């Protein structure tokens, strides 16, 4: 592994805390719905409002998802973990405390492997713990007051904390992307970053190589990979500026402003809360029996890394292509279905990486929005394999299929006159005619000029109006001239 790149002579040290909203239908400690976008306070029940006398009851679905995540990152799933209360006053925190896990989290250790450029890197996880989200304060003028929406209060979160293992914003972004892929792959989180289902806090510090860790500042609530990158990059330059000016870095919580691209301090260490954590007496310790872990393990989907390995070994894909095929579970499933239906792993991967991804990316869509059924694309690829249509012809058919969100491949080939010449006699006649009419090129070829051969192929294609199979034309020409 090469030494990390320095920025203005400083090494950057980053740890991420990611809040992944778990994909349960109801909240972590109540039966209210977690559906996003409802009218304010219509999805907050008595428990979420912290009405006197209410008590939390743990949603086993949230625990099951935490176990699934723990297994996927090869962490220890704690047989016993503790819910604690984090006490502070805020209007959108109805109980005056957040139920979280503090001393003993449900997931301990583990790692996520990333690839940055040509480098593989392992990012170690410290822990992942279950907690509830707070509500939302609506500060825009709300009848002259701040409005409180408690729909989000009690939404289950898995907070995933890394070791300070990352050394650049690029690594941080790769880790965040890999983690995002993983939690969506596992079905534990919908990954919707606009709705806040996946958001990162970045702990950033800088130091001279070999020095002790510098003082970190925590950038809160980054809900896009771009913001994550921008926030870290800004923060690094800001911290180096301070140090070079001889000023100290103070531990602080900062916010990133996407409009200015800058970070600004929200609170410093001095006004940090004393959260008075203590075990929540309303919730018994969370006991996870080995049988439960085993059951979750049995139901685990094949993980992206293992699947990519399999695509390399069994399908003969290149490493980079195999990784692309596993960019999401839906993508991998589409690839496998296409491969099986068309019979060519290589062509299936090429088409998905090429034409399909090009169009999806242009529309900022993902494979779930793919308009073409597997069978349609497979039919087209089969026509390439059996020589009915050239690659070029196939692209034209694909354009038509995409535009119409489907269609009959063979009918399109015929309608557009893209069928390649399959009649060996007809092709032979054209080849003979081309040889007869281009004596000069034939001479040059025989004298060793390869260029002349390509000219002859071009003539055959031209004479066939593009319908000749180039490979067949090649072969036939060679044989006749041989």
């Amino acid at each position, binding site marked *: 592994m090469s030494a990390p790149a320095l920025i203005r002579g400083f090494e950057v040290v980053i740890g991420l805390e990611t809040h992944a909203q778990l994909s349960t239908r109801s909240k972590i400690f109540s039966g209210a719905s977690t559906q996003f976008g409802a009218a304010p306070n219509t999805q907050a029940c*008595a428990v979420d*409002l*912290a*009405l*006197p*006398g*209410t*008590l*939390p*009851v*743990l949603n086993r679905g949230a625990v099951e998802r935490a176990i699934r995540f723990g297994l996927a990152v090869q962490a220890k799933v704690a047989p016993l973990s503790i819910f604690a*209360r984090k*006490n502070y*006053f805020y*209007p959108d925190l*109805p*109980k*005056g*405390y957040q139920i979280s896990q503090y001393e003993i989290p449900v997931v301990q250790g583990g790692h996520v492997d990333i690839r940055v450029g040509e480098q593989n890197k392992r990012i170690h996880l410290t822990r992942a713990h279950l907690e509830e989200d707070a509500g939302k304060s609506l500060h825009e003028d709300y009848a002259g007051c701040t409005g*409180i929406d408690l729909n989000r209060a009690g939404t289950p979160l898995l907070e995933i904390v890394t070791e300070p293992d990352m050394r650049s914003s690029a690594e941080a972004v790769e880790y965040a992307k890999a983690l995002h892929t993983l939690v969506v792959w596992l079905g534990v989180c919908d990954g919707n970053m606009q709705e806040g289902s996946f958001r990162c806090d970045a702990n950033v510090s800088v130091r001279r190589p070999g020095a002790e860790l510098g003082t970190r500042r925590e950038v809160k609530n980054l809900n896009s990979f771009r913001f994550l990158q921008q926030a870290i990059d800004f923060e690094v330059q800001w911290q180096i500026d301070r140090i070079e000016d001889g000023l100290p870095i103070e531990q602080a919580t900062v916010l990133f402003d996407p409009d200015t691209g800058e970070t600004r301090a929200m609170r410093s260490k001095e006004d940090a809360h*004393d959260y*008075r*954590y*203590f075990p929540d*007496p*309303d*919730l*018994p310790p969370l006991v996870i029996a080995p049988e439960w872990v085993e059951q979750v393990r049995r139901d685990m989907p094949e993980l992206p890394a293992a699947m990519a390995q399999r695509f390399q070994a069994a399908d003969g894909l290149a490493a980079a292509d195999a990784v692309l095929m596993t960019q999401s579970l839906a993508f991998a499933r589409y690839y496998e279905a296409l491969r099986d239906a068309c019979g060519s792993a290589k062509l299936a991967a090429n088409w998905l990486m090429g034409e399909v991804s090009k169009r999806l990316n242009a529309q900022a869509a993902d494979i779930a929005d793919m308009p073409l059924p597997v069978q349609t694309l497979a039919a087209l690829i089969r026509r390439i394999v059996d020589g009915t249509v050239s690659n070029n012809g196939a692209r034209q058919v694909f354009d038509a299929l995409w535009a119409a969100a489907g269609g009959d491949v063979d009918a399109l080939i015929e309608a557009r006159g893209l069928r390649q010449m399959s009649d060996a006699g007809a092709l032979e006649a054209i080849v003979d005619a081309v040889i007869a009419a281009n004596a000069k090129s034939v001479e040059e070829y025989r004298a060793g000029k390869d260029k002349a051969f390509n000219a002859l192929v071009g003539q055959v294609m031209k004479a066939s109006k593009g319908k000749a199979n180039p490979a067949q034309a090649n072969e036939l020409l060679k044989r006749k001239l041989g």
Partner: protein
Amino acid sequence: MSSALHDMGVARLGRALAAGEVSSLELTQHLLTRVAAFEHLGAFLARDTELSLAQAREADACRARGQAQSLTGVPIAHKDIFVTRGLASTAGSKMLAGYASPFDATVVARLSAAGMVTLGKLNCDEFAMGSANENSAFGPAKNPWDLQRVPGGSSGGSAAAVAARLVPAATGTDTGGSIRQPASFSGVTGIKPTYGVCSRYGMIAFASSLDQAGPLARSAEDCALLLSAMSGFDERDATSAERAPQDFHAQMLTPREGATAARPLQGLRIGLPSEFFPAALAADVNGAVRAALAEFEKLGATLVGVSLPRTELSIPVYYIIAPAEASSNLSRFDGVKFGHRAKDYSDLRSMYERTRAEGFGPEVKRRIMIGTYVLSHGYYDAYYLQAQKLRRMIADDFQACFKDCDLIAGPVAPTVAWKIGEQHDDPVKAYLADIFTLPGSLAGLPGMSVPAGFGEGGMPVGLQLIGNYFDEGRLLHAAHAFQQATDFHSRAPAGASAA
């Protein structure tokens, strides 16, 4: 007939209703009239005559349909720590004055489902913090045996109402003795079951790891009937015990092996912790308790000496853990969503500060401050963690005792009920008076107060019985046997019977 109605307990009323001697409507009207006549006791905080009468009519209709259960039509009132639909739920605090809960506490819902008629909500110390009912924001409740004295607390309104024959039974809650001590001070029978037997859903939380609901009534038999109806697993309380419904009345009636009519407690070993009989124990209390224990011996029980060496430590342990939990539980009372909000404030912080300064009384503030302190960074290990360790040791001490005995007995409180205002200036002195009830609370064990005699000023003295986990049946059986042989539990204060 009607003059004696209010002297009847739950079991007796159940039989009278079943026999058609009286209707629930007549009974309810009679008791509501008494409640109104005893306004000066300060036992009730909320009533709704129409609501009660409607429930009574429904109970009578239910009986007419042949669907009556054993408690159908029997009136009860609830400590105002339980939230109720239709009646304000205040926890004895200005913070929740007029608070309307959209749901009933599980305990209340279960007693209603059993057909009981709610007569109203009963006074208590603010958020159940206190042992004299003097910390209620709505004024003290008074002891029917002597109106100059406290009824005990925090379930003071419950004990006073049952003692004064305003209701045959009441619900209470016990965190460090809040059922047993007022039962003792007011001469009624009360049981705090094992932690987890009754759902805490809908009980306004004081100290979550200690709070337990239980009944206060005229006899062990009545308590057994009530506890059967109010207890049981509740999926809305993660700390409630997952087990089958219990028939405590049947357990109470099941004879011991080797028992005879004269010696129903033959073979029962009752442990007497030496620490429960210190030199400082008031002579009248000591005398009544010893006499009651002699009666138990006559009934066949044997008395064995045991030790609970950390009894004194239970006071600091309790007064760390309970305020710590309370300081957090009471954070939700911030003026944002419900309850009191200060009228004048300049910003969020001043809204919080003024709301809580105005809404909470001095004892609640004291405990919030203690609790906040012991959980603070740098103090947590020294106080809270240390207290938790000792709590486990106290529980272990009980298990050591239960190797040598089946039940543990002693006084409920070191003295009889004191005069109102007597302990106002010395909260620590009041804390010390909880010494005999705190160990069982910290261990989560079931405990009872059984009327055992009378002391100074003719004030009642309670005998405390403590059982092992989920041994309520044995506790009730022993108490019932004692009450079959004595009449302390059925005596009424002078003013009560006459009215």
